[in-house]
C-alpha cells in the first residue's frame, strides 16, 4: 500500500484542507469549542483572576526522540510557560507548518501524542491552523502553540521576587531532554538510554501553589539550562545565589555524555523540570509536598538566595571550592525544542 503524503493542496483552504482537518486533526483534538470550527474559539472562564498568555514555536530535530516528540513538546512547552506564571491553562492553539510530502501516518502519530500530552495536562486545543509549504521550505514539520491561562487571585510569581534567605528548589534530575535529543540525532556515535523529561508541569505547580501560594519565582530551565535560569533570576531580583553541586541531581548517563562531549549538565535543556524560589520558612514543607507528585518526586533544595554579590550565581563544588555560574554562551546546540 502506498503511504499517504501531505500535498500542497492540503494547505490551500479548499476541500482537501477540510478533509485533512476532519479526518486527522479533529478526531484527536476533538472538544466542544474546536468542533464549532469558527475562526476564533470564544469562551469564558468561571474562575476569577488575571489572564496569562504565551506562545512558543517548535522545530526540534529529529521529530521523534526517546521520551517524546515534537507534538508532546509543543503541548508541554506552552503549558509549562503558563504554569511558570502560576496560571491554570484555559486553552491552547496549535498551528502546523508542514513540508509537502510529509507522511500522513507520521503526522497522525504526532497528533496522537499531542492528544495524550493535552490529556495529561487537562487542557484543550481550542483553535488551530494548517499550512503546507513546498518541499525544502521546511524540514518535515514545525508547530507553534499559544496558550491562555488564568492566574488565581493572590498568586504573584515573578523572576524579580527572589529575596535573600529564600531557598532554591529543583524539581528533579537535569539535562535529560537535551542529551536525549542529541543522542537521537545520531550525529555523534553515542548510544544511551537517556529519555527526554518532556512533561506538563501545571499539575505539579497547582499542588505547589496550594501548599505555598506566596511562592516567589518559578522557571522551567529549558534552553540554557539551570545555570542560565538561576542567573536570570539573580539578575532580575538583584540578589546573589549559592548552589551546592553535590545536591544537584544529575543521572550518571547524562554525566557520562557530558564528559564525552565536554559539556556541563547545568547548561543543558530540560522540558519537564522547574526551579522554584521559595521563602525560607515554607521550603521544607514545599519540597515534601512536591515529592508526593510523580513529576516532583526527586525535588530537592539545592541552595539559597543571598544578599551578597548581586547578579552572581556561585556553585559550591564537591570539594568545597567555588565557581561562578554564568549564563550559557557559545556552545549551544540548535533545534533541541
Amino acid at each position, binding site marked *: 500500500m502506498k503511504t499517504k503524503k501531505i500535498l500542497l493542496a492540503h494547505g490551500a483552504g479548499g476541500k482537501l484542507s477540510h478533509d485533512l482537518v476532519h479526518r486527522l486533526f479533529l478526531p484527536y483534538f476533538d472538544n466542544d469549542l474546536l468542533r464549532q470550527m469558527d475562526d476564533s474559539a470564544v469562551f469564558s472562564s468561571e474562575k476569577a483572576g488575571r489572564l496569562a498568555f504565551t506562545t512558543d514555536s517548535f522545530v526540534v530535530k529529529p521529530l521523534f526522540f526517546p521520551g517524546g516528540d515534537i507534538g508532546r513538546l509543543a503541548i508541554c512547552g506552552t503549558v509549562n510557560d503558563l504554569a511558570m506564571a502560576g496560571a491554570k491553562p484555559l486553552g491552547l492553539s496549535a498551528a502546523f507548518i508542514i513540508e509537502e510530502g510529509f507522511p500522513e501516518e507520521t503526522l497522525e502519530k504526532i497528533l496522537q501524542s499531542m492528544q495524550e500530552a493535552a490529556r495529561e495536562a487537562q487542557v484543550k486545543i481550542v483553535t488551530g491552523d494548517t499550512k503546507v509549504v513546498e518541499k525544502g521550505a521546511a524540514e518535515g514539520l514545525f508547530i507553534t502553540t499559544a496558550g491562555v491561562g488564568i492566574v488565581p487571585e493572590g498568586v504573584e510569581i515573578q523572576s524579580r521576587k527572589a529575596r535573600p534567605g529564600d531557598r532554591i528548589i529543583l524539581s528533579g534530575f537535569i539535562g535529560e531532554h537535551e542529551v536525549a535529543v542529541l543522542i537521537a540525532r545520531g*550525529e*555523534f*556515535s*553515542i548510544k544511551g538510554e537517556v529519555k527526554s523529561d518532556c512533561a506538563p508541569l501545571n499539575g505539579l505547580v497547582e499542588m505547589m501553589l496550594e501548599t505555598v501560594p506566596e511562592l516567589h519565582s518559578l522557571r522551567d530551565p529549558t534552553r540554557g539550562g539551570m545555570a542560565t535560569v538561576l542567573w536570570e533570576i539573580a539578575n532580575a531580583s538583584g540578589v*546573589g545565589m*549559592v548552589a*551546592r553541586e553535590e545536591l544537584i541531581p544529575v543521572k550518571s548517563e547524562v554525566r557520562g555524555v557530558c564528559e*564525552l*562531549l*565536554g559539556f*556541563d549538565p547545568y547548561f543543558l535543556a530540560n522540558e519537564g523540570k522547574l526551579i522554584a524560589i521559595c521563602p525560607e520558612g515554607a521550603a521544607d514543607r514545599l519540597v515534601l509536598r512536591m515529592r508526593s507528585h510523580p513529576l516532583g518526586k526527586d525535588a530537592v*533544595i539545592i*541552595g*539559597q538566595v*543571598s544578599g*551578597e*554579590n548581586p547578579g*552572581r550565581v*556561585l*556553585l*559550591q*563544588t*564537591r*570539594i*568545597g*571550592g*567555588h*565557581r*561562578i555560574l*554564568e549564563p550559557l*554562551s*557559545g*556552545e549551544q546546540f540548535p533545534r533541541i525544542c
Partner: protein
Amino acid sequence: MKKLDEAGEARSRLEKIALLSDRPLRLMEVCGTHTIAIFRTGIKSLLPAKIELISGPGCPVCITPQKEIDRAIVYSRMENTILATFGDLLRVPGSDSSLYEEKSEGGDIRVVLSPLDAVRLAQDNPGKRVIFFAVGFETTSPATAFAVREAGRLELKNFFIYSSQRLVPPAIRALLSGKKTRIDGFILPGHVSVIIGSHPYEFIAREYGIPGVITGFDPLDILEGIEMLARQVREKRAAIEIQYRRVVKPEGNVLALKVMEEMFRPAPALWRGLGEIPDSGLFLREELSGRDAARVFPLELPDPGEPPGCRCGEVLQGLIRPPECALFSRACTPDLPVGPCMVSSEGTCAAYYKYGRELMAKQVKGQSSKVK
C-alpha cells in the same frame, strides 16, 4: 566508592600542600582538560595564594595555526567533498570565514566524535570524497591511525586525512628552551600519557631540573598531583612521577604507539604562539601519501598572521593571563571569539571567561559557610 568524603579528603590534601610549599610555586598544567577541571571543580579558589597555576599549550584547537584552518575551509569548498572534523574546530575563525559559516553557506561539514566515524562517512558516501581534518595530540592520533588503517582495509579510495596533529613533549621542550617564563613544575596530561607513558617527559627533569607529575582529572587527582609536585620542590628533587597510576604505565600503550608509528611520521610543525617546533607534527608516512589531503590537493595560501590585537600566543605559553589581553571579554567572547583560546571549550580564555573571573571567586570565598 565515589561516596567517600571528597570535601574532607580535599581539605586534608590542601593542608598538606600548604605545609609543603614554603615558597611561591608556578605550576603549569599543560593540558586543556586539566584547565577546565581546575576551574569547574573550584580548585583555583581553594589553593593557597602561594601556588599559581598557569595554563600551557595543551588545547589542540588553540595551537592550530590559522593558516591550517584556512586550508580546511578551502577543502570544505571543493566540489563533492565532505569535510569531517571535531566540533570544537567549527567556530575557530579563519582569515575570512570559519567552518561554521561555511556550513551555514551549504558546505558539507560534519562533526564527528571519532575518526572512525569519518571512515564510515566515506563508506556511506562512495560518490564523495571525505577529508578528515585531524587535529589533536597523542590522545586522538592513535584513533586517527586506526581510521587510516581501517580505510586501507576497506580499500576506500575516497578517504583522506588533512593532518594538523601535534605532539606534546616537543612543545614542552620548546617552551623550556625559550626560557621566557619561570615554571617550577608541570602537571602533565593524563590522557596523552596513557598513550605515550612517562619516558618522553624524562628530559624535563633530567635536562631542565624541573619536576613533573602525570595527573588524572578528578579534583582529588589534581590536588594529589599538586601535592606531589610541591613535595618534590620541597625535597629539591626533580623527577617525572605518575599520580594517575590507575591508567598510565611508564611504557604507555604499546599497541597504540605501534599503529601510530605505522601510519605517521614526525616532522617540523607550526604552533600558534610557539612558532615552528622540530619533530612536533604528525603527518602521514610517505607510502600513505595517497591519503594525504595536503599532498593530493596541494594549495598555496598566504600566511594570514595572527588576528590583530589577539594575544593567544602569549596565553598559550603561560606568559600572560587572559584578562591581560585587551580583547578579553570585550571584543573577544565565546559568542564572538577572536582568538582560538576563546573558541575551544578547552581554551584557557574560554575557561577564564566561563568559570573564572577568578578574582571574583576569591572575593566571595567567605560566602559558602552560610549555605545550609
